[in-house]
Every structure is written in structure tokens, then in C-alpha cells.
């Protein structure tokens, strides 16, 4: 795909707010542009507002204010045009328990205004290894299989934009792999994909760009590579035998922090850097006659990132 086409916006969200009755602000002033053909990950903890945002874009929930454009068309005024190009795999496993796989997938295609096309449905079912189950009633399927059915439904009408809301929650390794293969295949065919997750790893594995959302606010949107550099830091905690008043001058370059009333030194480093600086730090510590009892490391969690980001933003 050509560069200029990739950068073209396919979804534009402008000043979007959502307040649930009576006064819970689930989304606050969301502005976001999704580029055509990209895989965008919306990353945030539970209750951040990911599902609400997706639901508004897909027309399931009404926004309190603000607007959304898909291919330049307003999702309220031009809902026919905008909705027919969107497919949604919801977070919850909501299915018509009594229907067969084939019927439920064909139903969705019709609902989205497409003429029946058994070949296409067959292709999707085969891709999702559902073909053998096509005449099975959905209630007889396992959770993973139901998730596959939901994906098949979302793809039944050949959408240009696909939303995957927490696609890997409660999903086995095999389906995860199949799903990512499928997503990459779709992207090759020009489909734009927006997925939500609360796992950094997942966003890292799949996305081109990542948006971080917390408490209804989009804190940051960044290229994955840039963000991962920020997220890729680890902390080394050194518990000292004797508390320190301040960091000795020769240790300044390490940008150390004292914690726990001077009983602990914290060193933050980049796991992806060629040199993490740990060896040198330990050497300098011993030369400064600083002894420690214990050490441990922790990867900065999403929580830490949020805390940092929130601090930066206020």
C-alpha cells in the first residue's frame, strides 16, 4: 500500500463525550484519527471506556456530544454508508444460541445489506476452522469456537474497518495465533483494524499505533515503536545495608533515586538498549563502598505508565 494512502484518515473522532445516566463521564473530549489500513490498538485498564468508544463508533450507543466521521461521513446522518463498511467483534460472547453457525453468519451478511454469497461465507468459515461445525447449533460450541463465530459474523459482509473488542480475552493459544494471522491477512487486503486490549504485549505484538485510554480520557497516541521505547524500561531496586542521605556525586550519571527513607536505590534502565548500565553501576557502587542486602527488578507495568503519564498531563 502506498504511503500517502496509508496516512489518509478513515475514522475521525472529534470532541467526543459520553455521560451515562445520571452523571458518569465514561468518555471525555476524545479526539482521534485512525489511518486507513493501519492496526490501531486502544490500550487501557478495565473500565477505561474502550468498549464505550467502540460502541459509539459502531452506532450501538449514542454520544452525549461530539461527532465521528467514517470515510468523511457522519455516523449519525449517514449511518447507512458508514455502518455498512464496519464489522464488529464484541467483547461479550453474545450469540444466538439456537441458530446454526451457517445461519447466523449468513444473517449478519444480509443485515448489512449484502446479497447472499455462500462462497464468501464458506471461505470465512474455512479460514476460521469453523467449516466442520457449520451446521452445529451455536450453544453446542466451546467458548473459543463461539468467539470464532463472532469473528466470522463480523467478516461476513466484507467490511473495510474491523473492530475487535478484547479479542483475546479468555482465548486459547491456538485461536490467538489464528486470529493474529487473520488480522495480518486482512491488513494486507487493506482492511483497517482497531482492537482494544489491556495487555501491553498484545498491543506490542500487533499494532502499528497505540492509543492509551484511562478513565475516559485518551492520554496519548503514539507510534508503537516510540511508545515501546517508553514502556520498555525496567527498574532495579537495591536495598541498602546502611541508609543513604543522598546519592554520591560519582553516581550522578545513573540518575538514581532514593526510596524508602534512603534504604533503597532505584535505577531505571532501558531493556532494549545495548548496554543497560547495570554492570557499571554495580561496580561504581562497590567502589563507593555502598553495600546492599538484596536486589530485585520490576518491569514498568501499564499502571506505572499511567501514573507517569497522568503526572505529566497534570
Amino acid at each position, binding site marked *: 500500500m502506498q504511503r500517502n494512502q496509508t496516512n489518509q484518515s478513515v475514522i475521525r473522532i472529534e470532541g467526543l463525550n459520553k455521560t451515562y445516566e445520571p452523571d458518569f463521564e465514561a468518555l471525555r473530549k476524545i479526539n482521534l484519527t485512525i489511518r486507513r489500513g493501519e492496526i490501531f490498538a486502544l490500550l487501557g485498564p478495565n473500565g477505561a471506556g474502550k468498549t464505550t468508544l467502540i460502541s459509539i463508533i459502531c452506532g450501538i450507543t449514542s454520544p452525549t456530544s461530539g461527532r465521528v466521521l467514517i470515510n468523511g461521513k457522519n455516523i449519525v446522518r449517514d449511518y447507512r454508508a458508514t*455502518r*455498512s463498511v464496519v464489522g464488529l467483534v464484541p467483547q461479550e460472547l453474545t450469540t444466538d*444460541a439456537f441458530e446454526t453457525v451457517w445461519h447466523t453468519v*449468513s444473517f*449478519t451478511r444480509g443485515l448489512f*445489506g449484502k446479497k447472499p454469497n455462500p462462497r464468501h461465507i464458506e471461505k470465512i468459515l474455512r479460514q476460521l476452522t469453523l467449516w466442520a461445525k457449520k451446521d452445529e447449533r451455536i450453544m453446542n460450541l466451546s467458548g473459543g469456537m463461539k468467539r470464532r463465530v463472532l469473528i466470522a459474523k463480523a467478516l461476513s459482509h466484507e467490511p473495510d474497518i474491523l473492530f475487535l473488542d478484547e479479542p483475546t480475552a479468555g482465548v486459547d493459544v491456538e485461536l490467538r495465533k489464528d486470529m493474529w494471522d487473520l488480522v495480518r491477512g486482512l491488513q494486507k487486503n487493506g482492511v483497517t483494524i482497531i482492537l482494544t486490549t489491556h495487555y501491553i504485549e498484545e498491543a506490542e505484538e500487533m499494532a502499528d499505533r497505540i492509543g492509551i485510554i484511562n478513565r475516559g480520557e485518551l492520554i496519548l497516541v503514539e507510534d508503537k515503536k516510540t511508545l515501546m521505547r517508553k514502556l520498555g524500561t525496567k527498574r532495579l531496586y537495591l536495598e541498602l545495608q546502611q541508609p543513604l542521605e543522598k546519592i554520591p556525586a560519582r553516581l550522578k550519571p545513573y540518575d538514581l533515586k532514593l526510596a524508602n527513607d534512603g534504604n533503597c536505590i532505584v535505577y531505571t534502565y532501558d531493556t532494549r538498549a545495548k548496554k543497560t548500565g547495570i554492570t557499571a553501576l554495580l561496580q561504581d557502587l562497590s567502589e563507593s563502598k555502598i553495600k546492599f542486602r538484596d536486589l530485585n527488578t520490576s518491569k514498568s507495568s501499564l499502571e506505572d505508565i499511567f501514573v507517569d503519564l497522568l503526572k505529566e498531563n497534570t
Partner: protein
Amino acid sequence: MNTEAVKSIYIFEMNRARRTIFQSIISPVISTALYFIVFGSAIGSRITQVDGVSYGSFIVPGLIMLSVLTQSIANASFGIYFPKFTGTIYEILSAPVSSFEIVLGYVGAAATKSLILGLVILATAYLFVPLQIAHPLWMISFLVLTCITFSLFGFIIGVWADGFEKLQIIPLLVITPLVFLGGTFYSISMLPPLWQSISMFNPVVYLVSGFRWSFFEMADVNVGLSLFMIALFLTTCLVIIWRIFKTGYKIKD
């Protein structure tokens, strides 16, 4: 117009009926046959004729209306309530369909089912009693109008209900009494004058009366008035549905 969507919803709903054929066709037919045996034979041996029509035949239009009313409401309310209950409504809400198309699909299917049911009961009645239909076209028109009107009404209940209890309470507490008191099993003129006046507030009286007229040319109220009342009720349902979709009441957050 998204005709594919209307077709999809319609076929989906008709398939559901095929799966639950016992509930939707066979059980009403059985209960109608029971009504014939109990009311037609037991009571009919006492009341032999109403205005020159044998009692067994007299109750046929009312019995058909009874089943058609209850099944229209049950079918249409369940049809839209169930996706709300399971959550699959997300799909309808996110699809490029207008409210009109949604109503057309669900109500169309529910009305079709009741129409089939009404005709099946009519055929069953033929086995028990002699029947002549004076105005077949009017008969079908009354039947179709009733199917549509009460399927719309059922749709409203299905949208309004937020539990299975609410889904059943209106048919049980409102419709069944109205039907039984609406001249299904008797002619309004058999009642004392006070009850005759009270009955005039029961909309079902107009339905049954008009429908019965199309069979036997006998009616408790003027046929024109019957038609007017059905039209009025139909319009009321349409207005309510239009309001519901305008405000998104209980469908969208």
C-alpha cells in the same frame, strides 16, 4: 431501503417459528379444539343459536381472534425482546438498517405467523362446525389488519419489557380479560344494558364484532366503526413505535 436486511430479519424470525412449531401453531390449535369441545358442545347444547347462527359456528370468529391476538403479541414481543435479553441486539443496532426496516422485519414475520395460525384454526373449525363466510375479502382484511396491529403492539411490549415477567404481564392481565369480555363467546346484546355500555370501551369488541360480521353478517357494532377502531389502534401503535425509535427508549444507552 435495505431489503436484504428486512429479508434476513424476516427469514430469521420465520425460522425461529419453525423450530418452535409446537408452541406457535400446534398448541393454539389444540387449545382451540378444546374450546370447541367445552364451549361448543357443553354450552352449545344449552344455547343452541345466537341470532340464527348455531353456537358452535358463532364462536369461531372470536376463537380465531383470541389466538391471533395473543400469538401476535407473544411472537412480536418475544422476537425483539430476546435479542435484547441475550445481547445480540448489538448487531441490529450496528447494522445499516432504519427503524422502519427493523419493524418491517420483526412485525412482518410476527404478523405472517399469526395469519397462518388464524387460517389453520379456521381450517380446524371446519372440522367441527358448519361455516360459511359471507364476505371472504373482508374476513381476510380484518384478519390481516388485526395481525399487523397486534404484532406492532407486541413489538412495543418487547421493547418496553426489561424482564420476562413484564413480557407476560400485559398479555395476561390486559389482553386475555379483554378478549374474554369482548364478545368472543357471546353476543354483547345478551348482556344487561349497563355491561353493554361498559363493553363499548373494550377495543376487542370492535375487532370480534367486525370479524364476525364478515362471516355471518351479524355484528354488535357497525362494521364501519369496527374498521375505524382497528385503524385507530394501528395508528396509535405506529406513533408509539415512531416515538420509541426517535428517543432510543430502552434500546440504546
